[in-house]
């Protein structure tokens, strides 16, 4: 008598494709997933609780470690929240430096995603090509702020360093170089029939589901929702740039791929314009008291990180430490839809779906 039974499979916490320490308990029938239970928290460091005992300047290096692929946006969101509370006016030059740094960071983050996603799907070369370009960005940011990943670049009221000599020119040269390489990426992957078969129709969800699950970033825009905080709630100086929000309508991994690749191009546009408009001189720090004490009250700001909407809520009692700090970490929210997407899929699609969501475990676990 042949008897078949379901099998419990632990994907992770140590698994090459979970992009960190993430575990999914799968109930599988053959290779078909019946039930998926994600387990998170292996990388939990309690950033929000730690922040309650730290001064605002001290919190900034902690935010570097949340979404470590685009630390610039994290730096920005906390600075932006404090600045909003204190009503600070940020010098123009600092704003431009921030925008250039953030958009370079966005490109770097999408490049990592592109490389690792293709690695998940079994192609190993795109990863190294993507990292070649990412290295160029990282070197630029390293020159700017002295670190390759954990930038700690922004301060409440401005930025820590002015652009070094010749840096703006280097960024200007980088834009056409990146455009050229991007064409190569499309040659290598975008038209590849095997790749298309792997991603088309995989991990599909509708517009309504995306909104219900509070998805953001490319995960939302792939369903046809035109929502980008840089356009819809312009912060910093984003209203000065002319760029499009790439929106795709199929809601599958393929749309997410296209969306992110198009976002790289849009970011390049922003960087190009920011470099052109970059003020020749000016201060990089606003007048900020030595000890930062935002007034009593609370503030919530949200900005567009490469992974979606990153928000920062601060409740202050007028002391030098926040009373409560809360980050809306986009990866955490984007991950919530995973169990729903996995049911009925096979094991190979699991990787394609999980990779397509683009999570960073440092951010999911906080």
């Amino acid at each position, binding site marked *: 008598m042949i008897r078949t039974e379901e099998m419990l499979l632990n994907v992770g916490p140590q698994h090459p494709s979970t992009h960190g320490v993430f575990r999914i308990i799968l109930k599988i029938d053959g290779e078909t997933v019946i039930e998926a239970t994600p387990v998170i928290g292996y990388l939990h460091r309690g950033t929000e609780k730690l922040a309650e005992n*730290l*001064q605002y*300047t*001290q*919190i*900034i*290096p*902690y935010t570097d470690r949340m979404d470590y692929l685009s630390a610039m946006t994290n730096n920005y969101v906390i600075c932006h929240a404090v600045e909003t509370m204190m009503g600070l006016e940020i010098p123009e030059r600092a704003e431009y430096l921030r925008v250039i740094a953030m958009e370079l960071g966005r490109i770097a983050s999408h490049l990592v995603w592109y490389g690792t996603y293709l690695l998940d799907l079994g192609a190993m*070369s795109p990863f190294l*090509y993507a990292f*070649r370009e990412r*290295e160029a960005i990282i*070197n630029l940011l*390293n*020159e*700017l*702020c*002295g*670190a390759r990943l*954990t930038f*700690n670049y922004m301060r409440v009221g401005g930025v*820590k*360093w002015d652009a*070094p000599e010749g840096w703006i020119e280097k960024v200007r040269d980088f834009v056409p170089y990146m455009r050229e390489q991007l064409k*190569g990426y499309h*040659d*290598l*992957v*975008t*038209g*590849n*029939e*095997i*790749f*298309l078969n792997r991603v088309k129709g995989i991990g599909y969800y509708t517009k309504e589901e995306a909104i219900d699950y509070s998805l953001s970033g490319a995960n939302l825009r792939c369903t046809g929702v035109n929502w980008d905080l840089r356009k819809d709630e312009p912060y910093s100086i984003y209203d000065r740039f002319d760029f499009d929000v790439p929106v795709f309508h199929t809601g599958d991994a393929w749309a997410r791929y296209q969306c992110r690749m198009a976002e790289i191009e849009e970011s390049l546009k922003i960087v190009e314009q920011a470099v052109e408009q970059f003020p020749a001189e000016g201060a990089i720090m606003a007048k900020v008291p030595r000890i930062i004490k935002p007034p009593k009250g609370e503030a919530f700001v949200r900005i567009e990180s490469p992974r979606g909407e990153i928000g920062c809520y601060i409740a202050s009692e007028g002391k030098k430490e926040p009373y409560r700090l809360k980050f809306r970490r986009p990866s955490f929210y984007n991950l919530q839809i995973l169990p729903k997407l996995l049911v009925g899929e096979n094991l190979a699609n699991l990787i394609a779906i999980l990779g397509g969501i683009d999570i960073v475990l440092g951010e999911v676990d906080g």
Partner: protein
Amino acid sequence: MLGLTKGLKYTLKNLTKQNVTTKYPDAPLELPDRFRGIQKFYPEKCIVCNQCAAICPTECIQLTGKKHPDPAKKGKIIDTYDINFEICILCDLCTEVCPTEAIVMTNNFELAEYSRDELFKDMRWLDENDANIRKENKV
């Protein structure tokens, strides 16, 4: 099929391209001047103001001061100064707040040790770590 051949063409083209890897362990890595590496400490400059220890987000700096040996002079001089590199995140805040530039960043970053205890660096070690100091902080 077209997409597959395009991809094949791209990889073949890269076969002859100059590779981009560095010879890191054989040749030292060129780092920009602003790079945040292991700190260098100048004991003679320190005024024991405790600001670095206070701003450190991970509380990895410990220092004690003593009275100036010359009774004519006011103030304190540094007695012990330790940085625990197990938890130091090289965030640059200590060098930022230091009023006398007694603690500055260098470009050195190789910290691997066989024992955790060796990551606990004292004043002498930090004083001797004087290679590749940031240009703006050079004496």
